[in-house]
């Protein structure tokens, strides 16, 4: 349990214990004025973590800590866990290995910290392709591939799918690729010879 801190200098503020609600405050150290709203959690005692009880007799033991009593089975791999190993993620009880694996694989949305949105990358690549000149088809093809990947990957954590971005990237990528192919054919293909013949 500690007092709230000044948003400017991080010094501890002198407010009455148990105060909950909005108040105008001023830092005693740096004189910064600000609004402060405290909630009941400010005065909640932080509970100490549990280390797990020692195993006795015929009880099942933790997979990792073999001297500790198992308190639950991991929802991911089924291994027994002691109180120290158990991590609650939403409704799930997971061991550290499954938590880490799930986070890396992007299966645990609750602990995900960032996500690449391929549809947005595809739009940037397609727009960049507009100024790439002869390399535009490469950008166009890349944009198409990225847009398709974006459509198959999970959407944003917030639920947004960026379908518009993916469709736009697909269209622009196709225009870039086919446009340049058409120009290439006109210049160096059968039609191109006709054009050069006329000039000669």
């Amino acid at each position, binding site marked *: 349990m500690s007092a709230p801190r000044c948003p400017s200098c991080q010094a501890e503020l002198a407010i009455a214990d148990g105060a909950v609600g909005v108040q105008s405050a001023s830092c005693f150290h740096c004189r910064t004025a600000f609004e402060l*709203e405290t909630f009941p959690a*400010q005065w*909640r005692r932080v509970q100490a973590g549990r280390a797990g009880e020692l195993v006795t007799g015929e009880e099942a033991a933790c997979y990792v800590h073999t001297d500790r009593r198992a308190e639950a089975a991991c929802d991911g791999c089924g291994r027994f866990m002691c109180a120290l190993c158990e991590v609650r993620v939403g409704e799930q009880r997971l061991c550290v290995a499954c938590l880490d694996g799930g986070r890396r694989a992007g299966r645990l949305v609750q602990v995900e910290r*960032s996500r690449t949105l391929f549809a947005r990358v595809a739009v940037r690549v397609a727009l960049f392709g507009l100024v790439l000149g002869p390399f535009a088809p490469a950008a166009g093809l890349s944009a198409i591939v990225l847009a398709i990947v974006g459509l198959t990957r999970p959407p944003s954590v*917030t639920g947004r799918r960026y379908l518009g971005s993916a469709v736009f990237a697909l269209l622009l990528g196709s225009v870039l690729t086919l446009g340049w192919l058409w120009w290439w054919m006109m210049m160096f293909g059968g039609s191109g010879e006709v054009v050069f013949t006329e000039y000669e």
Partner: protein
Amino acid sequence: MSDARSSPYTRLPARRFGVAQRATLWLGSDHILVVHETMTGESYRRFFLRDIRAITIRATRRRETTTTVLIVLALVNLLPLVALTSGDPDVRVFSLLAAGSLVWLALLTANLVRGPSCETRFSTPAHDDVVAPLSRIRSAHRVIAMLRPRILAAQAGDEPPVVSPATGDTAP
């Protein structure tokens, strides 16, 4: 176009724009999600409702600074525009300068309309972080008014300790 039909989040009316990035605020079942959108993806920061200890709002001078910068940029476009009107202007140059001026004036208007700027911090046992989308006092007050009942409901079991008026000691 975005599809939010299956979204577990509700978007809150707060956002902040930066150069090639944007920050938005979302409300989940038991937490607040701050989303920083960049050129290639999103990064997330979660504040669980039952962990929020305090919220501070400190007024800043960012609005005034932004206003000054935008006025200078608008003038850089407007002054040659005025000079061009006296002679026989090139239509393309004239249009370019006029469009530039309009963009800066629109941004200037938006900056003034959004109201005074601020820095909002959410304090939890784990961290004390700036919540970028809550960068205007008016929107910060509006959003916090929406969040207050949910935070209090999530912390309903956390009664403040009873303080003895005589000794100042708190009951266990």
